[in-house]
Structures are given as C-alpha cells and as structure tokens.
C-alpha cells in the first residue's frame, strides 16, 4: 500500500467542501429574496419554497426509507434458500430495527478505533 495522500484523506478538504456547500445554500436562499420569480402556483411564491421543499423532501425520503427497511429488509440469501421448510426471515428471530442499530454501532466503533 502506498502512502500517497489523496484529496479527501485530508479532513480539511472535506470540511472545505462542506463549507462551500453551506455557503452556496446561503447565497441561493438570499437570491430568492432579491430575484422576483414568475410562478404558476401560489405555493411557489413563498420565500425559499424550493429550498425548503428540497430539504424536507430528502429528510422525509430518508426517514421513510429507514422505516421501509424494517419491513422489507432480508438476508442476502433470502431468495437463494432452496429448502422451503427453512424460514430465513430474519425479522422473526430478531427485530430488524435492532439488527440495523447494532450494525450501525459496530461500524461507528470501528471508525472510532481507526
């Protein structure tokens, strides 16, 4: 393994990227106050409608997807089991939510160590 440092190995660069994003968001939001947009629907004329909608949409999307995972997530070999009498539905032996949380915890621990 070579020890060459790559762009995002330096946490400063990551921080810079995130800050640039914050900056752009602020600029775009303030531009909404200055520029008059032409609109078709009354909701569109709220200040920052698109910005807020975009943000909320993604948060709702991810939160609902997390809930969806509890219902639909199965082991990787779920469809591969040939013996039908074996039930490989992991939700039955352990709450799926717990499994996810455990895995997240494990991963976080690994990251803390490294």
């Amino acid at each position, binding site marked *: *393994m070579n020890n060459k440092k*790559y*762009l*995002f190995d330096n946490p400063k660069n990551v921080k810079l990227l*995130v800050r640039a*994003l*914050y900056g*752009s*968001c602020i600029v*775009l*939001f303030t*531009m*909404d106050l200055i*520029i008059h*947009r*032409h*609109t*078709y*629907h009354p909701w*569109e004329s709220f200040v*920052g409608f*698109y*910005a*807020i*909608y*975009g*943000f*909320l*949409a*993604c*948060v709702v*999307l*991810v*939160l*609902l*997807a*997390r809930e*969806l*995972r509890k219902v*639909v*997530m*199965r*082991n*990787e070999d*779920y*469809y591969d089991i040939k013996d*039908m*009498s074996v039930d490989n539905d992991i939700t039955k032996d352990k709450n799926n939510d717990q499994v*996810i949380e455990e*895995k*997240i915890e494990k*991963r*976080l621990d690994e*990251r803390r160590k490294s």
Partner: protein
Amino acid sequence: MDSLLPILPFFIAAILTLFTRGWLRATIMIGTPIIAAYGIYSLEIGHTFSTSLMDFNLTPIRIDRLSTLFGYLFCIAAILGNIYALYHKDTMQHFAAQAYAGSAVGAVFAGDMLSLFIYWELMALTSSVLIFARRSEASLHAGIRYLVIQIISGLLLLAGIVVYYKSIGNLDFNYIGLDAPGAWLFFLAFGIKSAFPFLHNWLTDAYPEATESGTVFLSSFTTKVAVYALARSFAGTELLIYIGAVMAFFPIYYAVIENNLRRVLTYSLINQIGFMIVGIGIGTELALNGAVGHAFADVIFKGLLMMSMGAVLYTTGEMRGSELGGLYKRMPKTTFFCIMGAASISAFPLFSGFVSKSIIVTAVLLEGYYGVWLILLFAAAGVFHHAGIKIPFFAFFAHDSKHIETAKEAPKNMLWAMALSTVLCILIGVFPQNFYAMLPWPMDYTPYDTTHVLTQLQLLFFSALAFVWLKLSHIYPPELKSVNIDAEWIYRKLFPKAIYKISNVFNAFYTILEFNVERLGQSAQGAATQFFGARGFLSNFRSLGGMVMWVAVILSASLFIYYL
C-alpha cells in the same frame, strides 16, 4: 432496399460478428450504427415501405418525426454501447447486442402491429442473452424469470392485436386509446415493458445480473421502446399521469436502502420512466416532447452511469455499496465521468437532464395537476439524493474499501465510451434549442430563465444539504448486505412457498388415500384369493374336464345371449 437501411445493417453485423475477430469486428461494431443512422437520414419524413404477407398489409418501415428521433437515439446508444463492450471478446454478447439494437430500431420504425410484435419478441430473446452471458447461477435464474415475463408481455400484445384486428380490420399501429377493442391488452403489454408498478420487478431483478456491457444495452432499449409505443398509442390517457406519478415516487425509497449499486440505478430508471409516463399521460405537444426528449437524454446519462458502475464491477468484481468505497484514488477518470452522469440525471443546469425534465414539469404545471407536480418535485429531489449523490459517494468516496489496493482505472475503450456520453450530456444541456429542434412536435420553450435555474439550484443544493446533515448525524441508513423484498416476492417467494404448502397438504391427503386404497386392495385380493386361489372355490375343478366344462358353459351362455 433503401427502406431497410436503418435496420438491416444491425442484423448483418450480428452475423458478421460470428465470423470476425479483433480489429475487423471492432470496426464492424462501430461502423454499423453509423450506417444505420445514415440510412435513417437518407429516408424522408413520411416515407413508408409496405408489403403484404398472406392477407395482411404490413408496413415494416414508417418514417415520421417520432420514430426518427428514437431511431437516431438507438443508433447513438448502440455505438456507445459497442465501444464500451470492446473490452471483452465474448462473441455471444457481441452477436446478441447487435441483434438487440436492430430489433429495437425495427420496433420503432414498425408501422403495423404485426411487425411491432415480431421485433418485440426478438428484443426479448436477444436481450436475455446479455443476462445469461454473465454465466453465473444467479444470472441464469434471473434471466429465465426475465424471459418469461418478456414473453408474457409479447403474448398479451399478440392477443391485443388479434382482438383489435377482428373488430377494426387493419393492423396500422397508431393511436389506440383505452376504449378501443383489446386496448387493455396493449396497455398491459406496454405496461410490463415500461415497468408499471407491480409489473416492474423483472427490471430490478435481471438488469443488475447482466454483464457489465449487457446492462448498458439493456437500460437503453427495452423500456424506451415501451415508452415510444405508449407515446404513439396512448398519448393523453389520464390514467397514465397517475401511474407515472407512482412510478416516479415509490422506487426512490427502495433506491435509498438498496445495497447493489446497479440495482439502485434500475430503481432510478423506473423513476425516470415515471416522468416520461406522466408526460405521455398529459398528452399536450409540450408534454409529449418532454416525454420523448427525456427518454433521449435518459438513454445517454443512464447509460453513462451504468457504464461507470460496470467499470467498477469489471475491476473489483463487486457491486455492493457496503463493500465499495474510496475508488476515486484508483479510478479518477471513471469517478469524473460518473459525477458527470450523476449531474445529468439530477438535472443540474447545463446538463441534459435539466433541459428535458423541466419540459415535463412545466407541462404538468400548465395543465394544473398540482398534486402530481408536488410529487414530481419530490421525486426530482429524491433522484439527486440516490442517483446523484449515493452512487458516486458509496462507490468512489465514503470509506476506503479493500478493493482500492487492487483496483485499476477502467480500460481505454470504456473510458472513451464514457467520455463520448459525457460530451453528449453536456452538448444537449448547453445547446437545448438544437436538441429541441429534433423533437417531434413544434414548441416554444426556453429552459434557461432565471426562475428555472434558480429554483432548480435551490432544490438540488438543499437536497445535498439534507444528505450532508443526515450523513453527519448518522441518521442516513448505512449500506448493509441485504436484499429488500418488493413485488417480486409474490412470484419468487410466495408462489414457491404456496406450492410447497399446498403440495404438503395434498401429500398428507395422498398418504391417507394411498393407505385406504392399499387396504381396500388387500381385502379385495383376500376375497379373490378365497374364490380363485389355490384352495379357492374355482380351483376345485382343476381337471381338464372341469376346464372344458366351464368353457362350454361360457360359450353356450354367450351363444344364448347372442340369440336373444
């Protein structure tokens, strides 16, 4: 002969790939789509080529603005896919890809339903080869499921054609509408191929199992032919608006939690088709232009994303987001092209998705479908989230995976294919008026005004902000080794399980039945032995005379009965 110039070269090339190798084959593969595109160019709008087979009047070639657009699109997709596929020497795949492209071009130029049906089935057969060509057990099973569903779609189409022909009396493939005889059969046949909700799982099931280049071809042709067919035959059907809205909405949730990155892209493919279906459902000239224009842009940027993921699969042999990451260190060019594709699908200004998707959204607003508009806006933010950020992030950034030690930059031919796709994405995005001039219907639309650009940038940047916040606060669901059950569960788990359970019940019944029959048999045997057995009643006449006597008795009895 001139009339067949757009289609025939592909089939000739398919046969030639069987006998050629190396540079010669590469030249044929790159040259064929160019010849075919020239063939389309040389035929005038309005040109038709008719022939009759038995008593049917067939029109295998019909050139109009709608079919021409898709014809050129498939030529572009074929040449990009062929350049991408040059890294392997698999004759079977090269053969199938040429025939598949030819069938897709044939299907959009088919002016009658019977020709359409033939190409429809040819597409099913040739495309399935690209899945089988992966030569793994998973791809074999997925390929069989894929083929069965494609054939069902073809049979529904055939049934629709029969019903339609019986009452209408001609086979011309034009507007059908839901009230026509057999219309629902057509609707369902096209619906399967364009991945309507609950009919969509063949796509998410089979595409990720195909070869690296196979998936690029698959994502270009089949669904887009279905979009073309719907645009021609069901434009303005209101039901399609709602179907399209559902298609744009639900797959993004699956895309967020899916681990296989190529499967994430198939969910996002359904989401993009949803936008097109909404446009077809609206049915105004602006909306239809948006639908087919978006199909055009989608083939290129979705192809580009599939190519970049194919390159990752090729070099690492891995497609699960949980096992990938950090590859930007080894594959900087692929990373760049992937980000270009991601920017296009997310509809960033100056990229192709922006100039095509915004037509559909504007058309929806103009027609006053505000609920659908909100859903599409939600879906547009979601696309950026799962295709624009998730795909490049988990493949090329995130954490360093074990693959970065061995990973290499993609082969040159792959990079060329990705570079050309990127150029096309940017050209369409920067020169929208030239692109709009190709669209079938006249329209007056400018994508680049302050409102559009500003609102789109706000939507995208705040989506990115949401991603960053969710990721930093560890709310974002991590990539886990898993599968997510979807509608396919019905035929992949429920049916096999139900059959197993039912056969269990029947087995139990059968055992009881068998036992009783056996007992009955035994007692019958006992009775028979008593009568006919060695010590039975009839055995008492064991002498020859006894036998003769009985024969005589039977004969005389039959004679007596005969005389009666």
